[in-house]
């Protein structure tokens, strides 16, 4: 029997980001489309960052999750445009991130203006003590999607999921 698209979306909600396991791939906003025609399922995903090694794992996990439901006629498309942005991250995803100890993206703070060298760091709230007194340690963190921050109040170093738009 052909699955409904709604059922596929439910199954995809159970696939998590291998690097940030509290986030589902739907929270991340990387699933762009699901199409079902007869028993053929077509899922379109978009990479977060070009070189993100998690993308191959995510495609495999999607395949495995749908296979477990007996869905064998599956195609996964990789779509580059429109390019992924953190604006697509769900509200629930942002809350889960912070509870997990990663500061969620602050919208509208992507590196837009080149001449803003040594500009003010984005004010990011410490996910541990919620202080706004934090500073950027490095724009490049433990993975492509994160920057490295430290809290000036509780001194905890933490990851910030950078705004990418």
């Amino acid at each position, binding site marked *: 029997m052909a699955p409904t698209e709604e059922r596929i979306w439910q199954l995809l909600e159970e696939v998590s980001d291998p690097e940030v396991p509290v986030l589902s791939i739907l929270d991340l906003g990387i699933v762009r489309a699901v199409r079902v025609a007869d028993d053929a399922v077509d899922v379109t995903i978009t990479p977060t960052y070009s*070189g*993100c090694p998690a993308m191959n794992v995510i495609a495999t996990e999607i395949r495995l999750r749908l296979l477990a439901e007996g869905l064998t006629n599956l195609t996964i498309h990789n779509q580059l445009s429109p390019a992924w942005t953190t604006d697509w991250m769900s509200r629930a995803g942002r809350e889960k991130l912070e509870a997990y100890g990663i500061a969620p993206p602050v919208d509208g703070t*992507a*590196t837009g203006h080149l001449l803003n060298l040594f500009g003010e760091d984005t004010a990011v709230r410490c996910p541990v003590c919620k202080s706004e007194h934090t500073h950027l340690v490095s*724009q490049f963190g433990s993975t492509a999607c994160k920057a*490295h921050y430290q809290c000036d109040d509780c001194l905890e170093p933490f990851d910030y999921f950078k705004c990418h*738009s």
Partner: protein
Amino acid sequence: MSATLPETLAGIVPAAPNLLFPFVLQLADTSLILAHRLSEWCGHGPVLEQDLALANIALDLLGEARSYYQYAAELEGQGRTEDDLAYLRSAVEYRNPLLVEQPNGDFAHTVVRQFLFDNFHYHLLQALKESADAQLAAIAEKSLKEAAYHLKWSSEWVIRLGDGTAESRQRLDKAIAALWRFAGELTTPTTTETCLQRLGLVPDYAALLPAMEAHVAHVLGEATVPVPEAVFAQQGGKMGRHSEHLGYLLAELQYMQRSYPGLTW
């Protein structure tokens, strides 16, 4: 944009899809070789944060290279894969400009090489995302966001080193003296690039120069470093004439596939 080749070029070059192949390959080679150079820093960075920054930039470029190689393989249509193109071509077949194959040197050399490349890369992608070729435009749109971070990183480091200590300044000056001559090749079109520019598939490099030069002037100004006089542009990489450095780099990059042909993960 014209769909036909300019008269002067008719007969010399094949039609657009095949013409795009060497250009996309050139973009792929450029990102791959620089990614490899940057990855050589992994575990050797001056401080942990900058070690991570270099590895992150390398990873972005590697991802971009993969997109180009996959597209190049599709354009060629001969059954070669992205891996075949990266691992089974020799140095004379590589089309990256000379700049990106230059050795890492000290941190200042790496920063100056990156700054020259990022300044071109960022402005190129900004224009390339308007390309009449939809796939090139999509890759450019994706990579541009990452290239903006790279240019900010390398620009800030040029300023720190230039306006830093006597030691950092002296190293920056040496790096500029060694590497500036390789910048010209980036914006000097090959015959292939000229054709594609006339077809509207590749941006006109001359049109990128004012913004590139303005950024250099701004950053060097902040760094208290005088903008170097125009120097003779060292070229050849985009035509397959490389410095001796590329062979050694490829020997390492291609070692596994050459030793164990067909090896897969």
